[in-house]
């Protein structure tokens, strides 16, 4: 098989998702977001067709595919202008972590719902005082008999109001040594002592951002995912898919903007010719096409490495893909708006709202600067700078 081409099944999956998403589109997405409404009907439709569960193991009702398949679904939705942000966390991070590290009971309990999209789980890692520094996380789980008591704060957590539970990155205290070790807990969104407040954002998105407060939230023993102390490997198992999904989100939005711009410059006539005949407009769009395709290729490579079980190589590729995809997306939105003139900022053309949406890709889920740090240190062997 040609490693540089996607399988016939992957291509068919893309087509099926694109066809379904075309029935929703940017207008649907923007309308819902402006009205403060959710896109749960699109989510349910996607779930019903098994598109949200493509990467969940078959024995739990999923498609038995990989992150590459899930990333393709995410990208095609964004390309249609109606991305589902929670795909990045619920099926990509949470389902992956539970499928790889959860106990049998946790898998039985959660995975079938991830497979058909009927269960949504948010993911929380970022803290007010520990942004990119996962080692400074202070949210802590303490033993209380068989139970856990969870205390701490999280911020910029997506879609908590739409989720049934949140996968919380925390630490546990080793009773003997007092050392803190990373651990992941599933916390129901209605747990006593758990409060969440929306953060006002200037983003056009049906999914909202939240600050979370955990005040001695009592959790049963089985809320801890996998083994105590196995946390860091588990965490990174979930973060590489997150980056691959974020990259796909960006390339999808990039393709959306590029398609809009291309259609526009072909038909918009000024001075008696379509404006696309002017190289000043044609070349930037051609550059963007190249940048987006390169980012897509790296994203697919990262997914292929991850699905082949090479976590280390996937980590480097996923970082590079996320970086390249976010840059390509920001650039193409800027160019697409320029090509549209005043129309580029009109609601009708659906581009201005992408300025913030694609810009977020440079920050989340890991900042451009942290990716560059990673590449400088791990890929080039330069001294650690942070």
């Amino acid at each position: 098989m040609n490693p540089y081409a996607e399988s016939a099944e992957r291509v068919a999956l893309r087509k099926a998702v694109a066809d379904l998403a075309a029935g929703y589109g940017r207008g649907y997405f923007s309308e819902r977001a402006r009205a403060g409404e959710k896109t749960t009907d699109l989510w349910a439709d996607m779930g019903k067709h098994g598109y949200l569960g493509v990467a969940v193991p078959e024995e739990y009702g999923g498609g038995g595919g990989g992150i590459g398949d899930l990333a393709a679904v995410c990208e095609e939705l964004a390309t249609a202008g109606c991305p589902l942000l929670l795909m990045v966390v619920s099926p990509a991070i949470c389902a992956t972590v539970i499928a790889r590290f959860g106990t049998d009971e946790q898998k039985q309990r959660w995975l079938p719902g991830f497979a058909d999209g009927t269960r949504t789980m948010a993911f929380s890692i970022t803290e007010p005082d520990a942004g990119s520094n996962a080692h400074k996380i202070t949210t802590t789980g303490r033993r209380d008999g068989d139970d856990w008591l969870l205390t701490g704060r999280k911020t910029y957590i997506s879609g908590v109001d739409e989720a049934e539970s949140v996968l919380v990155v925390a630490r546990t205290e080793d009773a003997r040594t007092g050392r803190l070790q990373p651990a992941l807990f599933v916390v129901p969104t209605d747990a006593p002592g758990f409060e969440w407040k929306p953060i006002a954002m200037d983003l056009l998105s049906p999914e909202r951002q939240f600050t979370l407060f955990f005040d001695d939230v009592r959790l049963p023993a089985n809320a801890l995912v996998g083994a105590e102390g196995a946390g860091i490997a588990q965490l990174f198992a979930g973060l590489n898919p997150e980056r691959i999904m974020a990259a796909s989100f960006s390339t999808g939005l990039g393709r959306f903007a590029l398609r809009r711009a291309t259609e526009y410059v072909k038909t918009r006539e000024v001075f008696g010719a379509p404006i696309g005949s002017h190289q000043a407009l044609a070349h930037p769009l051609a550059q963007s096409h190249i940048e987006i395709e390169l980012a897509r290729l790296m994203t697919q490579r990262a997914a292929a490495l991850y699905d082949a079980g090479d976590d280390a190589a996937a980590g480097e590729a996923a970082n590079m893909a996320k970086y390249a995809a976010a840059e390509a997306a920001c650039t193409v939105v800027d160019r697409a708006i320029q090509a549209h003139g005043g129309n580029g900022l009109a609601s009708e053309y659906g581009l201005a709202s992408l300025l913030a949406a694609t810009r977020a890709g440079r920050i989340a889920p890991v900042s451009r600067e942290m990716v560059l740090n990673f590449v400088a240190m791990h890929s080039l062997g330069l001294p650690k700078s942070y």
Partner: protein
Amino acid sequence: MNIVVCVKYVPDATGDRRFNDADHTVDRVGVDGLLSELDEYAVEEALKIVEASDGSEGEVTVLTVGPEQAADAIRKSLQMGAHKGVHVLDDAIHGSDAAATSLLLAEAIKKVGAESAWDLVICGMASTDGSMSVVPAMLAERLGVAQVTFGSEISVTGDMVSIRRDGDTATETVEASTPLVLSVTDQSNEPRYPSFKGIMAAKKKPVETWSLADLGVPAEQVGLAAAWTKVDASAARPPREAGTIVTDEGDGAARLVEFLAGQKFI
């Protein structure tokens, strides 16, 4: 209930469709092809009927006559949920008209029936490229069974099929018993999108490829030379002319009426 669905691989109607300069047949090389959108309704209807008959072991066989790429139309149908495929493929078929196509479909259906009896043959209401709508009727004639065309709502009870047909002036509901050739309209259902499991499962579903020799059809009965009609010339449609823009200065309605009357629309 066993159902055979006849599907056609056609050039994408949203693309730039052309005729071949040499023999004025449809250019299938230069444009993307796909399962005719109108045939998706036939596949969906067959799947719904088989799924509704709980417990009985019905199968949907999807049949196409067409060039090598026509396998895509079978694959899409299998991804939607059809059980197996038959592809009638032979270089001599190129340029076949509706009469020859119906002959090939009929012989293939007889061959399918020799293995396991079929109850229903379902076709789309027309192909999106030729759009003649005559193949279902020709097929029924060749198979010697009843035909009901342009069905908009289908229900099956035992071996009785009830079909609603929406005409310009009246709606009729007719009943027919199997075996039957049925064509369905784009009002009959909402074709499903292939699920991920459907896409993966389609890889393993059996597809047989039959030649003219396999069907026992002589080459001289099909193809361009045997066609009853001949295309002498074809020309690209002229580009659409700019429309008339009526600026409403208080008399918009009157001017619209004037325009429509001038064009004899009203």
